[in-house]
């Protein structure tokens, strides 16, 4: 235990004195500062050119100049009446476009678009049929969907008018609004999405970076032969746990520095952020979730760091590290992708996620995501944490054994089977 403390101190000092570590932390803090001060700085510039900011409404409607700057949307229909009606409706709906009627032939319309003079065109063959021409169809292009809505609305209003209602009555019927409010009894995915996302991403980055560092650290000791003295001075278990926990602490220190400074800078600039929902939701993480985050973060970090350490001990040369850690990295990336996909699909309680939230290698990310974005019974959380703690300790002990066998093997990297056999016998 005394040895463990000394190793922990020595290893932690290694991180805190490491120029790269300090440099990266300072860089991240500066980056966060830049982001957090951004609204204040832009506000300062805006104050400099305070020209008619109050009359935004006038600018949109009255300024012809402004209309001409907008991208052109062409409307073409056989009947002039239909064309004009559609133009009016579209002009009101698509306020980012300069909506114009065209009489040109279809080929000319197409060439106008490919030449970039107009951005898109709706060619109507009937009041409810059209072809939408656009040069490059963007992933986020919703013009066609909006046009569908508009044309349906137009058609229905016309139909109502024709069946004897006045235009106003028809308009009222068509424009009826349903009012309602949502009260989520479980979790609000939208609100929790961002810190779940940040935690998953932070975990991903920190595990890959620090895991690699632990592996390199062990392999360096081995290749520099410092191991020959170390292994005769300290128990491998103390060595392994000392190293891994030191790296975990270093990781936490770095995160506290980054997120702590983010919190401080945010509070300094709170008024300038003006209730930005994303930022607010990040800093208003409920205590309960924060505790879960810490638990899963630390355990997830440790379980992977142990594996990285064990792998590092089997490499004879630093160059071997990259290939040796690949299986672990892959395992971790798969876990990451599963969680990320489920998160963005909104269904975090699918079977895959449920299974993943009990497997120790995936549960830190999977279970935390489910806790944040869905309602998970307490016993499931506790079981998941219990499995994770058990596996972390187990993997820690096995890693220490692999370490003891691994560090004394030089030459070609032994096969996993051979190592496990040696560990079993030792």
């Amino acid at each position, binding site marked *: 235990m005394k040895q463990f403390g000394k190793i922990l101190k020595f290893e932690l000092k290694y991180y805190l004195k490491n120029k790269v570590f300090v440099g990266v932390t300072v860089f991240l803090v500066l980056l966060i500062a830049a982001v957090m001060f951004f609204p204040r700085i832009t506000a300062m510039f805006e104050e400099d050119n305070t020209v008619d900011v109050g009359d935004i409404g006038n600018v949109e409607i009255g300024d012809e100049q402004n209309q001409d700057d907008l991208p052109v949307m062409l409307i073409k229909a056989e009947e002039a009446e239909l064309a004009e009606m559609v133009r009016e409706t579209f002009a009101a709906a698509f306020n980012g476009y300069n909506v114009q009627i065209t009489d040109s032939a279809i080929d000319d319309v197409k060439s106008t678009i490919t030449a970039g003079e107009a951005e898109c065109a709706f060619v109507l063959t009937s009041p409810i049929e059209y072809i939408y021409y656009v040069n490059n169809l963007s992933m986020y292009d919703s013009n066609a969907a909006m046009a569908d809505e508009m044309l349906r609305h137009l058609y229905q209003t016309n139909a109502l008018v024709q069946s004897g209602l006045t235009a106003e009555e028809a308009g009222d019927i068509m424009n009826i609004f349903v009012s309602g409010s949502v009260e989520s009894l479980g979790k609000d995915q939208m609100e929790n999405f961002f810190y779940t996302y940040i935690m998953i991403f932070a975990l991903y980055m920190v595990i890959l970076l620090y895991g690699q560092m632990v592996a390199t650290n062990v392999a360096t000791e081995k290749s520099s*032969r410092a191991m*020959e*003295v170390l292994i005769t001075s*300290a128990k491998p278990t103390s060595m392994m746990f000392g190293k891994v926990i030191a790296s975990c602490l270093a990781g936490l220190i770095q995160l506290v520095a980054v997120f702590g400074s983010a919190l401080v800078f945010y509070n300094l600039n709170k008024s300038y952020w003006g209730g930005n929902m994303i930022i607010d939701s990040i800093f208003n993480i409920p205590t309960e979730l924060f505790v879960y985050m810490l638990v899963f973060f630390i355990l997830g970090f440790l379980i992977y760091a142990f594996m990285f350490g064990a792998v590092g001990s089997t490499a004879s040369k630093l160059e071997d590290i990259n290939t040796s850690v690949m299986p672990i990295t892959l395992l971790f990336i798969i876990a990451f992708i599963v969680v990320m996909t489920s998160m963005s699909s909104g269904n975090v309680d699918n079977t895959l996620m449920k299974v993943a939230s009990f497997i120790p290698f995936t549960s830190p990310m999977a279970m935390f995501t489910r806790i944040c974005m869905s309602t998970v019974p307490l016993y499931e959380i506790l079981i998941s944490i219990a499995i994770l703690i058990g596996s972390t300790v187990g993997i820690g002990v096995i890693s220490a054994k692999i370490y*003891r066998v691994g560090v004394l093997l030089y030459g070609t990297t032994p096969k996993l089977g051979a190592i496990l*056999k*040696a560990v079993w016998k030792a």
Partner: protein
Amino acid sequence: MILELKNIEKSFGEKKVLTGVSFKAEGGKAFGLLGRNGAGKTTSIRILMDVFPANSGEVLIDGQPIDYNKIGIGYLPEERGLYPKKIIIDQLTYFAELKGMSRKAAIQSIDYWLDRLGMTEYRNKRLDTLSKGNQQKIQLITALAHDPDIVILDEPFSGLDPVNAMLLKDVVKEQIAKGKIVLFSSHQMSYIEEFCDSIAILKNGVVALHGDLHDIKRDYPRDRLVVRTENPDAILSDFGTACTVMEDGALRIQLASADEKKAVMTRLVENYDIDEVKVFEPSLNDIFVEYAGDGAKEV
């Protein structure tokens, strides 16, 4: 204090590395553990240091199983190396602390050793700024700083210049004089011969020879003579195949038995122009080749 390894057996997987290895080393004396590469020296040392356990057998101190919390061991590994990028005093303190010293005592002892080995000027430098020989001296401090009861030195002289070798010899003699068990492992037979009172030769994981070096030499049949002369031709032709020329130019005469010794000596002195004649005593080198070489006797 007597350190004893008793019937140590060790296998790695299917491969048997040590078979019934036993030897004894006494405090206040140096012990030489010899053997060719792969004979099992390092494995024996690692078992002795509890890096891994033996499959069977015991490590005893004065007849009792060794208590690693009480008996301090200092080790200079054959594969040298510490942290190249770290400050010397920092890493030396770390290693001494791992061996159970308090920080204060560790620094005090390290400063003594830095001074003793003439390395004080490098105290706050990084290890990789030092020459190989100086790095070796730093490594020696890791083996001695915590004042261990057993000092294990694996190839301690390799890479040292004659001046540093002298310094190390003095240090080793000092350790022996303090009553410590000093265990040498080396291929440089001259050093072993100079320091060690007793030896063990390992061959393929078996102790091929073990005992007091002086006794071992005395035990050789005294049936060979070394003759130095200016005119070897006459002797060579008279003794025929029994007489061979040794590397240093002297002649070696194999006798039919040790009983002939006196008669042959008299005959040589009376009949030939002789500078020197004596009974041939094997050097440690000869003994080593005989017991550990490819054509070695089976034991």
